[in-house]
């Protein structure tokens, strides 16, 4: 049994968030967005434009000071789940509320004498909502299935299921699952085919949800065990963790650990005491049948592999051979100028050579 209280979680069962306010919050969000852009992420990672747009909506330039600040998850150095949902909820409510709000001119007239009062606030809200309804926002757990091809002779359809998810550990990931399914087995289809559109059923989505924190390989194995479908690859592209000097490291996260916690602690060591910098990690975790061999270029050990006993590891590897897939793991970094060497040294010390983009 694992430790009942995971790292970064209080004994009261709550993720301990850190509050950033005003210009400090804005500056931090801008740095995270800049790092995400500098990372030059491919389609296996969450949509960068949507993520940036969603995060920018948390700055006072967009919300016009209607919110005092942002709660940050210190484990990932990204906004907490509550903040991501807040923007999403505001966007949904904005669509309904905008037609009900008085015109900009009317509000400006009424707010003229007392901009601090309600009409001044409604004017700001109107501007915020107008901005928000035009913004693409990041999906927080939606799955979409795209039909790749259909072979009528074998009654087989090939799909790509893509799911962007804000993970429970505060990281933001995209799961890309390539799979095929025979229609004669669609008594309980995991992917429903509707002409050229395909929709992932709740069951498939739930599997990805359940297995998310364990990574691509565990998700591959779980999906393969469901039957009725043939899994070709599972790729997880993860944005984060980040480290910035204004976000303190939770006391129970140790630099010696693997996975995101180990990475977070190591990057924190690089940025600590250096104002206005940021360092971000971007992991690619892949389990695919078309890989010729296993390869691991992640300086931080896979937490699932680390948790396995020797006996369980042997069992796991036997399963891997049976399903015929290999695993590839890599991690790239985007860091403020001047931090490249420190991060490079950190990777070298762990025996890997990684892409490090300075900006």
């Amino acid at each position, binding site marked *: 049994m694992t430790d009942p209280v995971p790292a970064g979680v209080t004994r009261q069962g709550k993720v301990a968030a850190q509050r950033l306010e005003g210009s400090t919050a804005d500056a931090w969000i801008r740095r995270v967005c800049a790092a995400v852009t500098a990372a030059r992420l491919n389609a296996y990672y969450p949509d960068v434009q949507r993520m940036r747009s969603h995060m920018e909506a948390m700055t006072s330039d967009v919300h016009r000071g209607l919110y005092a600040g942002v709660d940050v998850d210190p484990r990932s150095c990204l906004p907490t789940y509550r903040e991501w949902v807040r923007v999403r909820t505001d966007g949904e409510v904005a669509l309904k509320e905008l037609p009900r709000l008085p015109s900009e001119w009317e509000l400006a007239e009424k707010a003229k004498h007392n901009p601090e009062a309600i009409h001044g606030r409604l004017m700001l809200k109107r501007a915020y909502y107008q901005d928000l309804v035009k913004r693409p926002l990041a999906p*927080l757990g939606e799955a979409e299935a795209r039909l790749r091809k259909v072979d009528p002779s074998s009654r087989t359809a090939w799909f790509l299921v893509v799911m962007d998810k804000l993970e429970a550990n505060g990281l933001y990931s995209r799961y890309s699952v390539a799979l095929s399914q025979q229609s004669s087995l669609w008594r309980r289809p995991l992917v429903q085919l509707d002409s050229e559109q395909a929709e992932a059923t709740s069951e498939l989505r739930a599997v990805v949800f359940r297995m998310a924190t364990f990574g691509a390989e565990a998700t591959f194995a779980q999906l393969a065990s469901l039957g009725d479908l043939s899994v070709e690859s599972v790729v997880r592209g993860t944005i984060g963790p980040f480290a910035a000097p204004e976000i303190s490291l939770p006391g129970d996260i140790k630099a010696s650990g693997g996975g995101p916690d180990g990475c977070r602690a190591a990057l924190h060591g690089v940025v600590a005491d250096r104002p206005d910098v940021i360092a971000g990690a971007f992991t690619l975790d892949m389990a695919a049948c078309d890989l010729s061999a296993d390869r691991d270029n992640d300086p931080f050990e896979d937490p699932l592999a680390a948790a396995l006993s020797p006996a369980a590891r042997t069992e796991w590897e036997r399963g891997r051979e049976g399903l015929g897939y290999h695993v590839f793991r890599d991690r790239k970094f985007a860091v403020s100028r001047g931090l490249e060497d420190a991060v490079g040294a950190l990777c070298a010390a762990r025996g890997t050579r990684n892409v490090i983009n300075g900006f």
Partner: protein
Amino acid sequence: MTQEQEKVLERPVEYTGEGISVRALEESISDARRQQDVKVGELRQLRERNVEIQKAMAEEVRKLRKLSDYVSAGRLKGGFVANLKEILSYIPGIRRLSITQRSIEELLRQQYEISARRVKEAAEFADRLTAAESQLRDEIDRLNERIIDSAKNEERAANYLLEVNAVFQEAQARVAAQETGSVAVREAQAEVDRIKRVLADHSMRLQLYATAEDRLSRLKEGSVRIAETIANLQTDIRQYVVAAGEKLDLAAGQIQAIGTAADASVVVLELKRSLDAMTASMNETTRFVSETQIYFRKTIDDLVGELEIYDDQTRKVLETNLAASREIEDRRIAEAVQTALQRKAEGGGPEGAGAAG
């Protein structure tokens, strides 16, 4: 007439605000009343919105309570997975889910996002109430300005009337002092008639300004009542939104913790905490919505009733005023006709009637 008396009659009286007449007063009162009707209409719309929110919230709370009840220790004896399957069967769309503890995160997220939206909608509702109250307060300020203007004008009209009345008394004394039928008496009478016209004009103004002051004050009372109603509602809803928001914040932190916990007993404990926090949050808002529902039902209907009674009273006052004005005018016309008839009986022309009118 002395130069001083002439000056009194010629002196323009500087009334503040818009010009006044029976029609202008009527239109201005109607305008203010229309504004009040708009606000009452808005309150009625808000009441309908309240009903919608209440229904949605009642459904959320029912669902959350059911979930929470099932998670509570006494009902989990059948086994963790078996019970959770039953729990999740209450959530549409995931009935056939293969259950492990990590599915709970998905369930809670769905519920959290719905709950967050409800609280946000309630906060929007409070903002709309605040805006409606602010507009009414502005309207009350405008009515107050007009009440003060009317009171000042009433005072000016009364002072001027006293001055003109003094001139009138002297003019009447001059008529009495002249020989009947002489040119001098006709000249003095012409002065009396001229002064009477000034008196009639300003006595009408005095009456209209006094009426305006009274009617605007009563109109203001109606607006104050609506504004107070709205202010109470929005204060209540703000308190509830803050309380519900705090509970939801707690739930958000717990949902993330559940996602990272791998141990079943921890997950069940956190699930219970999270569901309870969300239930408490929804309860806060639902309690508000139910209470406002009663408040809306009672207060707005009473208010509308009172405003309608007020309208009746206003109409009566206006009709009495108009009837009184007509009576005065009729009397004056009758007097003029009487003078004309008298002149005719004595063998003279009807010219005197024009001077009297």
